């Protein structure tokens, strides 16, 4: 039969190398501490994970906005989508009203009479501009910033015609270039 040492006996220094010998006691100490830390860590992980939503009840990023002929000539502001819809005869394009600096809603400034501006070396006529109330960014009528902190132009989004009912569909997941036009 194996004899157990008395409880308070100090472990015999049997390894001459000097490294601490692993006894049953130190092993159990570490096992216990490890289990405690793993338990706390595991609980903390699942609590934090619970705060990352699995389901989002957010408005769709692709939606119908109505029949093309409902839109008057010129510009229409869609409040809930924060989007400017421009119509010139039968062509449409959509410019986001979300400032590219820090996300405030820009305001449209109608220019009457229209103004000649030079954008990237081309002279253009603009009927409106966008100004941001939060930090003073200013954009030309096609969305290029010319003053203030905005780093990039206002986003242009893809417009399509829904085949089933002929409504205009905006796709916020598809940014497009400034030459994009939807012909109806």
């Amino acid at each position, binding site marked *: 039969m194996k004899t157990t040492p008395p409880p308070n006996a100090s472990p015999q220094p049997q390894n001459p190398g000097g490294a601490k010998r692993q006894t049953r006691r130190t092993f159990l100490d570490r096992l216990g501490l490890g289990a405690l830390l793993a338990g706390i860590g595991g609980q903390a992980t699942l609590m934090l994970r619970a705060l990352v939503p699995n389901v989002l009840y957010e408005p769709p990023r692709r939606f119908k906005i109505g029949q093309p002929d409902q839109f008057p000539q010129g510009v229409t502001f869609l409040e809930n989508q924060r989007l400017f819809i421009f119509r010139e005869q039968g062509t449409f394009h959509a410019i986001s009203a979300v400032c590219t600096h820090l996300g*405030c*809603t820009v305001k449209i400034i109608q220019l009457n009479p229209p103004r000649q501006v030079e954008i990237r070396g081309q002279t253009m006529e603009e009927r409106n501009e966008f100004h941001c*109330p939060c930090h003073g960014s200013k954009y030309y009528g096609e969305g290029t910033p010319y003053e203030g*902190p905005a780093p990039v132009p206002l986003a242009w989004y893809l417009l399509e015609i829904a085949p089933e009912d002929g409504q205009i569909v905006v796709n916020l997941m598809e940014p497009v270039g400034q030459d994009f036009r939807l012909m109806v």
Partner: protein
Amino acid sequence: MPAGKTIWEKLIWTWKPASEYEAGDSIVRNLLLHWFPSKVTFQSLSFRYSFWLGTASAILFAILTVTGVVLMFLYVPSVERAYASVKDIEYAVAYGWFLRGLHRIGAHVMVAVVFFHMIRVFLTGGYKNGVAANQNRPINWIIGVVLLLSTLLLSFTGYLLPWDQLAYWAITVGTNIALAAPLVGEQTRFLLLGGNEIAQGALIRFYVLHCFFLPTLVLLLFAWHMWRIRKDGGLACVDQIALHQKEEKAPPIKSKTYSLLGIAGTRTVHVETALVDEDRFATNSSPSLTLRLLVVILATMVIASLLTIGIEAPLEEPANPAVTSNPAKAPWYFLWLQELVADTTVRIGGFTVNGALVGGIIVPGILAGLLLVWPYLDRSSARSVGVWFASERWRQNIVFLIIIVAILILTIVGTFMRGPYWELYWPWETWVALPRPF
């Protein structure tokens, strides 16, 4: 406590000790006083050294906690009902206007007081270790910086809760600054909002941060802050007294004798007590410290209440994602940051860095980082510990003051000189009239 006292005297004797013996005893016997030293130097009590700003900020935190808990019974953290419940607090609840006003003004004053407390500690070299053993004042300075940042976060999360225009656009701008952070920006914003849109998920997160996490953090850090002051031997100005005594080479008096009673009758241990406890430098904490504390509590409450009665707490229009108010301004203490993010977009050739990153993250990050490491860069001697405008530290004091003045100038420009579309206006100029949408 001697016998023969009336019940009233038994209740208040610790605040009004009748003898030297009672004065010492009161600190040990009263739970509320036990964290004070039994003796306190006249220098530490002086108004002109500390202006009692740390004390005032703790009192303001207490006022905010009490009013905040009452407001929690009245406020509903839902996007549909938050605005209406705040409107009810303002106009229908008995004294609701006062509760909300005191909570709001208390927060404004606390931001200012904590800010000036930091300036005081910097200019007096209060973050520096002196001559006593086991001091670690740099750690306490770091705790203080985190407390300052927590105070700002508490204010930010607080003014979001009414879900008015100020709230909505503050979250928009605040979380878009987070979005501008490299690599982790998108995930941070998603986690803060609990989604991609500013909606119910965002409100409830900011509510829980405001009512539980941040106050708990402040409370824990406050306890640590106070404990460290005791471990560091009190306010930094005390070190000057000790330093002068060292220079005078006064022989240490062996004033305290600890006997190992009953174990070894003849062996005693002599301890050099702090000489600063001598009568010519120090007095009993009760009543000298406690009385002043009560006066500062009363003064803080009176000032906060008068400001509440005098200054109306505004409630803007309900949150409207389609219309940003013009101009859309943050509260005054964030306007220097709003000014920075508006001015710091950098364009080099075709390459653009958003002001959100430069003014919203990099510049404040550098400032906070400098504050955190400054005690370790300051190489001035122990003679500059706890002294206003120490000559040895004049260069760093001037740089510090220049930064403070720059922040104040940006705040003033943002507050008084920015009109619609963030255009510059002189304070006496009238703003252009704008058509109102409704």
